[in-house]
């Protein structure tokens, strides 16, 4: 019984991280209908940013989140404006996808040259503290990362819900033409969406870097996980990303405990496939435009 509860707790904590690591991907897919393969590199880039801040400047990873988000915001804006927007305007969905792939190759190469391909991790002083609640033990780092993840999702949610720019983003997602008729500069909205999504990807990368070891090549994993989470929960909605992330976290830890670690990824990918075949819109359905 304790083992099951422990597994469920671990699964939820891991799921929270999966959720925050997927919201950026979800936003871009929902608003721009672009499969953004650069997502993982912004996540891993965030982790390396935090590593530099922690090991060189001695800044706590959690405190490095806001400045790193600003940097990622700027990078995301530039990347969208210079490279992705021209490809989107070609009207071919695969053109945009390939361009993000090309950008990812460049970024992975630069990260590998700068930091080498060896495994890195960030372990601040509090990273080995365990909390005990009854028979359940919880890593403090994971709990903190989970809480930060939820807070970040809440921030992004209220930005989209209540701010003027958030409203414009949602309007453009519903209908680009309609939004433009109302005087919205759709290109600026796309750049803003991409920048915001990149900032949140980098923030999630910091949290991931505190919990798990990472390498430049790891970016593929996070892009694929974001794919699964978003497909499972529903494209373009934060609730969908939350739900998908938590479910996937549970499934992943349950598989690991009861079937064996070899099968974790296989089960996760099977879920992606089955969801696509049975309910392509995800559990919550897609509130944003159909991505056909």
């Amino acid at each position, binding site marked *: 019984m304790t083992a099951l509860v422990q597994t469920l707790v671990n699964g939820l904590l891991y799921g929270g991280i999966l959720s925050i690591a997927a919201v950026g991907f979800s936003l871009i897919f929902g608003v721009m*209908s672009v*499969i953004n393969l650069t997502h993982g590199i912004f996540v891993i880039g965030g982790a390396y940013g935090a590593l530099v801040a922690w090991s060189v400047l001695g800044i706590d990873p959690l405190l490095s989140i806001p400045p790193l988000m600003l940097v990622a915001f700027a990078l995301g804006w530039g990347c969208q404006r210079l*490279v992705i927007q*021209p*490809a989107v305007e*070609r009207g*071919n*969905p*695969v*053109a945009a*996808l*390939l*361009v993000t*792939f*090309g*950008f*990812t*190759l*460049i970024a*992975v*190469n*630069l990260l*590998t*040259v700068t930091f080498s391909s060896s495994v890195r991790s960030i372990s601040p002083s509090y990273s080995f503290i365990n909390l005990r609640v009854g028979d359940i033990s919880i890593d403090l780092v994971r709990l903190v990362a989970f809480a930060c993840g939820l807070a970040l999702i809440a921030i992004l949610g209220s930005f989209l819900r209540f701010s003027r720019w958030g409203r414009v983003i949602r309007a453009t997602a519903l209908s680009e033409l309609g939004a433009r008729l109302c005087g919205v500069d759709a290109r600026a909205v796309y750049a803003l969406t991409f920048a915001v999504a990149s900032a949140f990807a980098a923030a999630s990368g910091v949290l991931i870097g505190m919990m798990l070891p990472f390498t430049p090549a790891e970016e*593929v994993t996070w892009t*694929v996980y974001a*794919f699964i989470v978003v*497909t499972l929960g529903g494209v373009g909605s934060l609730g969908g990303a939350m739900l998908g992330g938590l479910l996937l976290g549970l499934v992943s830890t349950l598989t690991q405990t009861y079937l064996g670690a*070899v*099968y974790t*990824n*296989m089960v996760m*990918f*099977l879920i*992606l*496939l089955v969801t*696509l*075949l049975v309910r*392509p819109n995800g559990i919550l359905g897609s509130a944003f435009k159909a*991505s*056909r």
Partner: protein
Amino acid sequence: MARRITILLLAVLLIAALAILPFFLKAFYVRVGLSIFLSAGFAVCWWLLAGFTSYYSFGHTAFVGIGAFAAALALRAVPEAAPALQLAWALGAGLVVAGGIATIIAWPILRLRGHYFTIAMLAVALVLGEAVAAFPVFGGSTGLALPNLAPMSVRVEAFFYWIALALLAVVLAIAWAISRSRLGYGLAAIREDEDAAQMLGVPTTRFKVVAFVLSGALTGSIGAVYALNLGYITSDSVFRGSLSLEMIVNSLVGGMGSILGPVIGAAVMTGVTKLVLADLLEYHLAITGILIIAVVLLAPDGIVGLWRRRRAREAE
């Protein structure tokens, strides 16, 4: 008619010229030619589906892997047969098993369109790759070894060079035949507007399934050669996302609008990476990335598209 005969003659001459090249080239260049033919073959197989119907598969490496492992396992059954028979047996196993699995997944997966088809194929490749790594029949993480089938009198790289060239010629001939058939016109109609095609009486589902199964089966047979050439396969080496991406990138660089697009793309990309970038190994990925972005933004219809545009301008 006369034009068709000219093209045919030119093709035969070109293939003959390529076939005698290994007698004059150093082993390294023969190997470059071999990898060009293999990646061109894969790209044309991928293009069979994507170019005709615009169903972009993101997981065609699934069929490479299926073909490779089918060949490896099939060869275990006939360890004593003559090498030529074993080769045919391995190729046949790759073709049939990949085609069979493609047939099974065709109906559910082809119901999906656009991005969803793309992602679903990615998922298929990921699931199969993980499954092969997890189950001991497939050698688990240690992988499987394949026998060396090249005769003693022939250089190994030249042997596989000829097989890959022959397979590429077969795949191209099939693609060419389809493009002039009822099937080809039906598939083109699906690409332009699937709903309209269906309304006009094109059996869209059947045509898509045929294209999908052909594409998968042929990829599987080339996958078998790929595995034989490697001599040793693991889940990671044949169920490899970069293989899927190479097919897409090569086709786009060459141009999606022509059968020769994928071949030209594969020749250019493989040539550039193996010959030009051989000394820049550290920045290999970044340069490939820049190349991809440049092609998509500057030459959206690929190299063939650039050439066609130039010809059109000269004709004015």
